[in-house]
């Protein structure tokens, strides 16, 4: 079934039939004539797979079919079903892992979600997290938040004296001369796509999504 919205088409795939039948049906449906918009802009299409699980190869195949039949641009493929691995991965990405102790020179800690360290990161030590990094201690080594590409990730430290800070694919290093104290600070990517270090208090404004507790005051 094809639906049109102002953002483009939505292709809803039948989730009861076999995959081969689905492909045939899709080709048939798409062979119906339609006029491309006069301004020549590529029309976006979203695919809803319903309760059908599509493997990576199948997804690619469907993208190809849709693209070849009509020059539609497949925006995304939605499905109600995900694999167990993917589900576990998502849980891990949401989880906060914690550790007490010191991350010393040469040690690398990598977690998929958020990371809470009660202790210091010494020069030469490194923390990599898929999400945010919170350090109750001094950061003197390298911290890499959002290391799988999450640009909204932040780094928070009681003492921010890092050798390097990395968020997603951005990198920043400490100034060569700096005698300020840097207590209770955070680092994030601002709207100019640069890593900035600021007071902890600004986080509430910049990353409202970090507040998950409701009520209170």
């Amino acid at each position: 079934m094809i639906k049109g919205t102002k953002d483009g088409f939505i292709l809803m795939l039948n989730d009861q039939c076999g995959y081969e039948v689905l492909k045939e049906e899709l080709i048939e449906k798409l062979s119906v004539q339609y006029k491309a918009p006069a301004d020549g802009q590529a029309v976006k299409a979203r695919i809803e797979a319903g309760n059908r699980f599509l493997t990576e190869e199948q997804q690619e195949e469907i993208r190809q079919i849709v693209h070849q039949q009509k020059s539609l641009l497949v925006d995304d493929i939605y499905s109600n079903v995900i694999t167990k691995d993917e589900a576990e991965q998502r849980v891990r990405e949401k989880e906060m892992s914690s550790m007490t102790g010191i991350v010393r020179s040469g040690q690398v800690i990598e977690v998929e979600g958020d990371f809470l360290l009660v202790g210091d990161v010494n020069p030469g030590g490194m923390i990599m997290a898929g999400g945010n990094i919170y350090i109750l201690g001094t950061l003197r080594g390298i911290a890499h938040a959002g290391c799988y590409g999450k640009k909204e990730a932040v780094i928070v430290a009681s003492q921010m004296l890092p050798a390097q800070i990395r968020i997603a694919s951005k990198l920043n290093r400490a100034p060569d001369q700096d005698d300020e104290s840097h207590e209770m600070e955070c680092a994030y990517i601002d709207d100019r796509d640069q890593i900035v270090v600021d007071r902890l208090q600004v986080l509430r404004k910049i990353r409202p999504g970090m507040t998950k507790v409701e009520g209170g005051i």
Partner: protein
Amino acid sequence: MGEAIVITSGKGGVGKTTTTANLGTAIAMQGKKVCLIDTDIGLRNLDVILGLDNRIIYDLVDVVEGRCKPNQALVKDKRFDGLLYLLPAAQTSDKSAVNPEQMKELVDQLKQDYDYILIDCPAGIEQGYKNAVAGADRAIVVTTPERSAVRDADRIIGLLEQETHEPPVLIINRIRNHLMESGDMLDIDEVTTHLSIDLLGIVVDDDMVITASNKGEPITMNPDSKASIAYRNIAKRILGESIPLMSLSDEKPTFFQKIFKLLGKK
């Protein structure tokens, strides 16, 4: 049953071997039976500092490979009535001549006969380090108040924390008082908070250490040197006594300074 202590640092040239020789001497002077093991195979020099280099017949590799019994390879230091022994490293092979299991077996065997076994570790974190650490019950990390040495000490402490059960303790060596006072050298607090392990002792930089090493008489045997007192204090702390850290300033306050201090002036 004795205790095996490894003396390590990561970085070279901070004074591991000198520390091993002097602590061994100082512990022996306290009446305990000590065995020193040099694990720096291929680059041995603990024997030189102790002045025992011309008495070596067998070495560590000979023992491990079964060419002689441990007792035959041990060199006795005659100055300490049978309390101080050295197991020298081989000079002809390299670090891969021994593996950690063999070292552990050897150290366990020696622990039967000695109160303390001090293992002198080579610089680096490769095979030689692994051999040295294998048999040890605890570790002493030696560093100097320099950034590079502290960085390497940090790395070594991280590795040690995964191996031995007891947390390692720290000796800060080669302290130069005037540099530390002027802030040109890391001070003791900076080093200990950075590494966050317990401080076992501090040793001042003393020219006499070098003279003594060249003569083959560990500085600890000379009771007048500040470094000697420092090593003796550390040895007593290893034996379980509680001795306060020695003060760093060279001169005792003069009579007038004391009076001014009482009056609250500088």
